[in-house]
């Protein structure tokens, strides 16, 4: 029992656990639609857009903590841009994401390079890899609030989103606002990714979106079951990974992702046996 009570008795671990659970839960549920829509690369693209947005915020004089408020509209705009290109051109989603990925990363590097030598030093490594264990109460509040709103919104819209992804034409005939939902999903994913970047970093955030959903997809036979399984894999993996990282003295986000990957491997074996 000490295995659990010892780490969870510490305040920074409690904060990390709440942040990890919130991020994992919302990323896993949104991830189900992202993966089913064939946009697994979206999380990566938006995380790099978030990097560009944070760099823009820093360039404009905001602190690292407050640059997120510049990054949110910036990343949401990039997400909408991806949606517009996908709907109005012949290009596939992964091409649109790749273009914006490069654009945002280049902007981010450009903005960081344009900062004056006298400006406050930025720890780019913490921006890229994040650290769940140093989440401040202010960041935790934002993470929990954004995750809760996004999760509730996704669950409210779940039936319409699912229909729109299954067959946009049939959904539209039934009165589902397909285009609006698609843009909403993209913008919502953008906001969640920006907030999650604060805790898990640019490089690792897309794993929280893709891996639990992909593992659940391997064994789930209906979209409702896939969603429930993704939620369980995401949150249980986050809790287990965080506790394991404490005892093994390993980076928390990376440990969580490795546990998610273990779940994916198990799902792969289970899925094959079923077939």
């Amino acid at each position, binding site marked *: 029992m000490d295995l659990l009570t010892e780490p969870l008795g510490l305040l920074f671990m409690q904060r990390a656990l709440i942040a990890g659970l919130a991020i994992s839960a919302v990323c896993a549920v949104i991830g189900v639609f992202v993966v089913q829509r064939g946009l697994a690369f979206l999380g990566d693209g938006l995380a790099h857009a978030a990097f560009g947005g944070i760099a823009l915020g820093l360039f404009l004089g905001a602190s690292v903590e407050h640059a997120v408020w510049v990054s949110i509209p910036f990343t949401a705009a990039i997400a909408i841009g991806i949606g517009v290109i996908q709907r109005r051109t012949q290009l596939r989603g992964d091409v649109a994401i790749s273009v914006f990925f490069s654009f945002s990363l280049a902007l981010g590097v450009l903005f960081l390079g344009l900062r004056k030598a006298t400006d406050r030093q930025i720890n780019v490594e913490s921006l890229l890899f994040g650290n769940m264990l140093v989440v401040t109460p202010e960041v935790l509040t934002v993470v929990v609030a954004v995750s809760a709103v996004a999760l509730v919104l996704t669950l409210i819209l779940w039936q319409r989103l699912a229909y729109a992804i*299954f*067959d946009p034409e049939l959904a539209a005939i039934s009165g589902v606002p397909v285009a609006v939902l698609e843009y909403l999903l993209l913008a919502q994913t953008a906001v969640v990714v920006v907030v999650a970047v604060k805790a898990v970093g640019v490089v690792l955030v897309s794993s929280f979106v893709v891996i639990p959903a992909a593992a659940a997809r391997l064994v789930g036979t209906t979209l409702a079951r896939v969603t429930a399984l993704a939620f369980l894999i995401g949150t249980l993996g986050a809790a287990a990974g965080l506790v394991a990282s404490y005892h093994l003295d390993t980076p928390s986000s990376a440990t969580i992702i490795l546990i998610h990957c273990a779940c994916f491997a198990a799902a792969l074996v289970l899925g094959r046996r079923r077939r």
Partner: protein
Amino acid sequence: MSGDFLTTIPPTPVSLERRSAARALQQTRPDAALPRVLDVDGVSIAIRDKVIVQDVTFWIPKGEFVCLCGPNGAGKSTLLKGILGLLPVSSGRIAIGGEDVAAGHRAVGYVPQRKGFDRDFPARAVELIVAALRGRWPASIRPEERERARAVLAKLGGARLLDKPLSGLSGGETQRVFLARALVTDPKLLILDEPTAGVDARGRGELLELLTHISRSDELAAILVTHNLAAVSKTAERIVYIEAGRVLCWGLREELLGQSSLTALAFQASDHHAHAPDEE
């Protein structure tokens, strides 16, 4: 946008020739006094300023089975999208059961071409059918919904498909489930967009049998888009033949299929348009 600014499809000498040939055919229209399930009145539809469907008029009374035929790129699918409310009409009016498309869409059952849906989507047949009842994808199925889905599938000889994953169904089975989906809401009008396309020979035969059965209904009106002459000859009471976005002829099956001129026109048209881009 005003229709005056839209690009129109210029009538080619070939189509003018066909039009005069078609005018010579006897074309019996439905009794105008009968209540109309579908009324397409002087409808034009444009996509990106290009007129695809131009001044199309026809109507379908209760219980009538109509085949909408024409070469690739003639505007059939565009017209269907207009009837389904997926594309706005530039001019004219489409009414379903006397109501505008937006209000009348609940009276329509639609069987799309097979290629439309996400084949990797984790779903069972029962969920697809219940989605049509609710207008949303079901997270869980209530017993009464399941029974309704089972009953409609059973009528189509597909009760065993109820809990099968859609990804594991053959082409014929998939279309049977989509047909059940279209019929579960008890529609007044059934719209079938090339349901036999991409289905193997056995599945096509089974599907054709089902369509023939449906075509005998006195209650349900239907509009079938097809290139399959066997389907037309087995199901159609009347044919609406569209070419270059316009109605070339509209009459009883015997009047149009019985005339070698139309069949010849159809084949000529198909050959003529074989390499044309499909603007539908």
